[in-house]
């Protein structure tokens, strides 16, 4: 069970959250300009990092807000939580030690 620190509500059980996959994947500026390969990349290809991974979560039974998180996909250790739209704070702010 992960204990996730929502930026608005503080630490809550994982069951209150939903997972949103890789963070920082922008919608293509102009989808019509993409090749099939590029469109496939946008639709189906996401990083599958073993190690520190920037991902999105939503506090669905709490404040219903999305946020970003850095989590180690091997140890499941949560290394940082930061706002949507914020730059990936590479291991910047450990929320738990």
């Amino acid at each position: 069970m992960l204990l996730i620190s929502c930026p608005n509500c503080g630490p809550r059980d994982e069951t209150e959250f939903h997972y949103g996959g890789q963070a920082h994947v922008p919608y293509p500026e102009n989808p019509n300009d993409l090749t099939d390969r590029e469109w496939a990349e946008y639709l189906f290809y996401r990083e599958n990092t073993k190690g520190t991974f920037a991902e999105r979560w939503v506090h669905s039974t709490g404040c219903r807000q999305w946020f970003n998180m850095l989590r180690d996909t091997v140890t499941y250790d949560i290394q940082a939580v930061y706002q949507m739209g914020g730059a990936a704070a590479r291991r910047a702010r450990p929320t738990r030690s």
Partner: protein
Amino acid sequence: MANTAAFTGINGLREIRRSPASHLAEAFDTGSVQGTVTLNEGPFQTMVGVRVDRSSEAGARIASVTGGLPERCGDVGGTERVSVLWLGPQEFLVVAPEDAHDSLGGDLIGSLKSALGDAAGQVVDLSANRTTFELSGPRARAVLEKGCALDLHPRTLKPGTALNTEVGNIPVALFKTGEESFRLFPRASFADYLGRWLLDAMREFASPEVP
């Protein structure tokens, strides 16, 4: 039940309105252990979902109708008569007695709507969305702890705090109204489930404590 007061309005349908856990009223009564932990479904209330940026002008106008908007998670604003629960950074649940409803002679929803005006936001009548359970007594916390992962210890959770969380695996707003009393706001469709879940969790307290 308390919910049979003879209000008119709602196109005359008020008379036949049933609260979502009314069928459990008797079970709540017999399942309650006086002096230990008691459960009952509260009266109908007027509930309004409000979405607004509390730092905006519209936010200030709405705050003047409700008697304030809470600033952060856990805070409850309002007045003696009206509670405003923080649901999210820009989302609030306004809870008032039933007769505050515009169809029953009140003006809460209308006032909130005009306070919002054309500004970005939302005022929605959610009076039928949730019901309220009152759980109180010295073992109320122990009952909740069987299915709520929040730290409910009094050193952390103070009276006057409301949190959106899960109890028995379903989403509820949990309002600690006193040292030993909690108000739970489940969605109407979960009222039966949560009511039975709470009864089950209370059951052990009807027997003498095993030392």
